């Protein structure tokens, strides 16, 4: 089981790399440098000569190859989880990740063939983050720390804060994707003020999207600090929560700095991509904190659900029903 967890972590890391490669494609404006799909300039994708990986093709073709690799790794993850994992919901999660990565590939192809229509490109960016979350959840729930016997948290405020924070972060990522794929990244070219004012003196759809992303950033920072303070004040005895909350604060501080630098640098591709990748890390850390805060609640409900789904699937499950806190959920 530990190897499944390690493998899931490998898939998470590969997904971060894939998000970085996708970020470079958009940031360098290379999304249409390979006009065909699934072929590459008529070549079978995997036999496209390396000496032709020039200019924007380097970014787009690398993105496709990394995506194919992640897709292959996800097939193995889904099958492996299905074969060795006793929890039905985790097995289903493995196949949800597989479905997400297949849909993601199709969206990627469709956005190339349809010349990057904003809704499909935004959907592609949004689904990338959901797929990342799925792989992260799989890595988390197959980890030994998830199954470790711990006193329950029973902090309704933390659960609410963490859940709202995660939803805020994902909403903010969708706003950012909308900004990138509608060309609104420099709609407000000054930072921190908007054209020298707190509120933009002129408005257009692009300025509105850009400004909403800035306001969203403030909301996210506020939500993350509220959640982190809740952890630091009331759960100092839980190093797993404190560590995740601290990491989350560090990520969001980096994210705000990178966001400012994106504007100041005039959309430098490297900084822009770092902002996208770090955004995924903010979402990931927030999600892990949320799931850990809900873990003890899920013991009862999931074990009960497992019992309904499969009957008494194993001796372990019978024991876990007697002692939910010690169950692998």
């Amino acid at each position: 089981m530990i190897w499944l967890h390690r493998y899931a972590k490998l898939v998470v890391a590969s997904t971060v790399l894939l998000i970085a490669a996708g970020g470079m494609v958009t940031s360098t404006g290379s999304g249409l440098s390979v006009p065909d799909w699934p072929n590459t300039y008529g070549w079978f994708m995997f036999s496209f000569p390396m000496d032709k990986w020039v200019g924007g093709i380097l970014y787009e073709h690398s993105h496709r190859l990394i995506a194919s690799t992640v897709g292959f790794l996800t097939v193995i993850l889904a099958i492996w989880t299905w074969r060795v994992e006793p929890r039905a919901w985790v097995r289903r999660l493995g196949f949800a990740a597989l479905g997400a990565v297949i849909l993601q590939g199709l969206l990627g192809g469709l956005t190339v063939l349809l010349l990057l229509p904003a809704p499909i490109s935004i959907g592609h960016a949004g689904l990338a983050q959901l797929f990342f979350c799925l792989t992260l959840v799989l890595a988390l729930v197959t980890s030994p720390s998830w199954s470790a016997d711990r006193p329950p948290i029973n902090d309704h405020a933390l659960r609410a804060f963490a859940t709202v924070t995660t939803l805020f972060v994902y909403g903010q990522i969708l706003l950012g994707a909308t900004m990138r794929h509608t060309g609104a990244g420099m709609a407000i070219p000054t930072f921190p003020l908007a054209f020298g004012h707190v509120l933009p003196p002129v408005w257009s759809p692009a300025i509105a999207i850009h400004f909403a992303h800035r306001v969203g950033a403030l909301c996210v920072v506020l939500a993350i600090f509220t959640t982190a303070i809740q952890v630091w004040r009331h759960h100092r005895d839980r190093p797993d929560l404190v560590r995740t909350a601290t990491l989350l604060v560090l990520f969001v501080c980096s994210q705000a700095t990178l966001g400012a630098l994106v504007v100041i640098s005039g959309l430098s591709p490297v900084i822009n991509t770092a902002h996208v990748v770090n955004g995924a890390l903010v979402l990931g850390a927030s999600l892990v904190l949320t799931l850990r805060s809900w873990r003890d609640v899920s013991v009862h409900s999931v074990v009960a659900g497992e019992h309904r789904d499969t009957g008494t699937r194993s001796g372990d499950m019978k024991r876990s029903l007697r002692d939910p806190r010690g169950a692998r959920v």
Partner: protein
Amino acid sequence: MRMNALRPTAAVAILCLAVACSQDKQAAPSGPPPNAKVVDESKAGNLSGRVTVEGAVPSNPPIKMSADPYCLRENPNGAMFENFVVNNGGLENVFVYVKDGLGGYYFEVPTQPVKLDQKRCHYSPHVLGVRAGQTLAISNSDETLHNVHALPDVNSEWNKGQPLKSMVDEKIFTAREVMVPFKCDVHNWMQAFVGVMDHPYYAITRDGGTFELKHVPAGTYTVEAWHEKLGTQAQTVTLGEKESKEITFTFKPSGAATK
């Protein structure tokens, strides 16, 4: 159950949409409308002139071609963007055209294609005109890959790969549009601008900013000059039968007109 039945239909619809969007050619415009007027060239005049630039002209930034070793080799002395081409005070690569006033004239669409080449990792020419319905032949003279990506607002957008030297693709724009930007997403410095016109009265300034519009029928016209960085300027010109007139457009980069 109904949703399941719809899934194959939706997949086929998406596939058809994708195929339709990747079609090479668009339909040409239809023939002359009834009661269309034809220009009598024996009574037509000429409109010529010059586009000048006043004040300091921004310098063209250098192009970084390190992303493609072939382009680097083909431009051993480096290359600059072609935003501002000034010769003896005249501004070149300006698209000058009759914007308004031609009324109900009908003009035959030329059968000869207009050529746009990709050479030494540049579009050549940088600015050109083509008639709606006329074939635009785009070729690749380079031993590297290019993609030809047209980004019109009125016509349909398309993107075509040309991975091999000597490849030629033929495209047709169906509607008037000033201007259609072209780019290569492989080499992000490559840009061209194509003016799509529904009449033959357009020219691109060359040789010190000069231009000439021949065989223009008598009438009052709005003539516009378009530049990729300096925007547009327009003038109203009245031309009599067999008359030749000269007009001058002057762009000032600091207080440039905008499109």
